[in-house]
């Protein structure tokens, strides 16, 4: 291919060195240190003692009794499961809403399609924290949703619908934040879809459902998978949505990690949770890489 401008190995090295060095030094090394810390013993006010221990991981599932025996304690497991469940719920709701929207966009005339892409991209690039905060105003006590009920006298002064600080609120927040990441890749694959194939199926008396299942879904598969990953992975490690909309009561993995490094100051336990989170993400990515092998991998996205 091209001959410009980095041919020589030296230049190649110099060109790549800054990026590689920065990411190695400030990303790979810190995460590796976390992995090491997760096998150490906590010091009282943060920090670690250099003694090997698997306690941090044991602590996720068990509670150590006074007589040093272990008792199963589901508290942290619940947080792991909640993170998984809510991330899954957010992914499914993004898919259910996102697919029809992407379909609609793909059937629009080309000029209009680009406008839709812009309209869906804009919220994604605006501040996540601020957009999540907006949902407090909507779901919160005296918020936009409660106001009409109160005005109509259905809801008493002190009463609240209790929309905030719930799994529902977190799921809505996650869905709202990440749904553009579902719509855009599905749209990208549907836009390339050859609609004459769909028409051919219809001409051959395929039922609507069969056409959808046998023709549309397989062709849109890379986009659907990419969208699901792009929603599921950040949802699993989310911090802002459970923190603001779950109100410290409904912890997820992200809020638990943050809590261990700030308030609780148990670094090894926080590190162990962080490693669990990282491992879950890696497992999902590896499963995806395996599943996507026959097809060209869908682009990483933003």
């Amino acid at each position: 291919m091209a001959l410009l401008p980095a041919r020589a190995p030296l230049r190649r090295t110099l060109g790549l060195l800054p990026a590689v060095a920065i990411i190695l030094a400030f990303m790979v090394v810190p995460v590796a240190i976390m992995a090491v810390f997760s096998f150490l013993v906590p010091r009282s006010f943060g920090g670690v003692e250099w003694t090997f221990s698997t306690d941090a991981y044991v602590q996720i599932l068990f509670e150590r009794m006074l007589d040093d025996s272990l008792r199963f304690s589901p508290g942290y497991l619940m947080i792991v499961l909640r993170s998984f469940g809510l991330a899954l719920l957010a992914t499914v709701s993004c898919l259910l809403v996102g697919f029809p929207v992407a379909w609609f966009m793909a059937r629009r005339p080309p000029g209009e399609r680009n406008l839709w892409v812009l309209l869906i991209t804009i919220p994604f690039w605006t501040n996540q924290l601020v957009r999540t905060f907006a949902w407090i105003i909507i779901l919160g006590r005296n918020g936009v949703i409660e106001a009409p009920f109160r005005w109509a006298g259905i809801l008493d002064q002190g009463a609240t619908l209790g929309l905030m600080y719930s799994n529902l609120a977190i799921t809505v927040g996650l869905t709202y934040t990440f749904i553009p990441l579902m719509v855009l890749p599905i749209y990208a694959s549907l836009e390339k879809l050859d609609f004459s194939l769909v028409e051919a199926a219809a001409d051959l008396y395929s039922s609507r459902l069969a056409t959808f299942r046998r023709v549309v879904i397989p062709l849109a598969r890379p986009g659907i998978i990419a969208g699901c990953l792009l929603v599921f992975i950040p949802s699993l490690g989310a911090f802002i949505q459970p923190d603001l909309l779950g109100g410290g009561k409904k912890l997820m993995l992200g809020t638990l990690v943050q809590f261990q490094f700030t308030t609780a100051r148990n670094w090894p336990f926080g590190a162990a949770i962080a490693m669990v989170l990282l491992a879950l993400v890696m497992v999902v990515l590896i499963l995806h890489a395996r599943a996507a092998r026959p097809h060209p991998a869908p682009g990483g996205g933003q």
Partner: protein
Amino acid sequence: MTGPRPAARRRRPFGEVPGLGTLAAGFLVFLYAPIAVLVAYSFNAGSIVMVWTGFSTDWYARAFANADIRQAAFNSLVVAVTATAIATVVATLAALVLARGGRFRGSEAVLGLISLPLMVPEIVTAVAVLVFFSGIGLNLGLGNVVIAHVTFCIPFAFMPIRARLDGMDTTLEQAAQDLYASEWATFRLVTLPLLMPGVLAGAMLSFVISMDDFIITMMVAGAGDTTLPVYIYSMIRHGITPEVNAVSSILLLVSIVLVTLYWFMTRTGPGTARR
């Protein structure tokens, strides 16, 4: 003509599902209503966000007059500009090597490494970098924040630059070399100008990403190095007044303007490669 036509097997076309347009319109409302609500309440005269008492721009005046907010906004700008400048240069160099350096052993690994910040959950990066900085005793104030931002901005700057390089026609570069332009002259006079829209797009993305970052900054920033999102978070925590909405609206406006600009830039000119 009476009764159904016998050969009317032609049903409505497959793609046109009734109600789809309504759903899509509803989706746009879902996307923009929260933003609209947030901005609307920033003009509330009263001090309780959710109790509308009248129109006023007082909260904007207050936000602008608040020295802490001004400092936080200044910090945000300093961090975003510095991190963007460094990340864009670093990403451009890497993209040039990876797109034009031919295949070499380890190129896949480098590509994977560059996209790593997109895969590791932000909260994990945040605490890891926090522990790392305190472990090596790095205490550069805003410098710490800049370093953390450069790291996660690199892939965002890299993507549009690489896409632009891949979509560019190399015959112009070859022509320049055929006409005895030196490599450096070719790069400066041909490659770089052609690449510029990609570089600008990458810089804009990384600027927006840096301005918006909250989790990593919250963990890494010291007490005096608050950025705007971190300040907004502490305001939300301490009780919500329309002042939060006013500051938030300004931040939203900045992102929306930049993203719209980015969009127009990546769409103009030949050889544009959108993913």
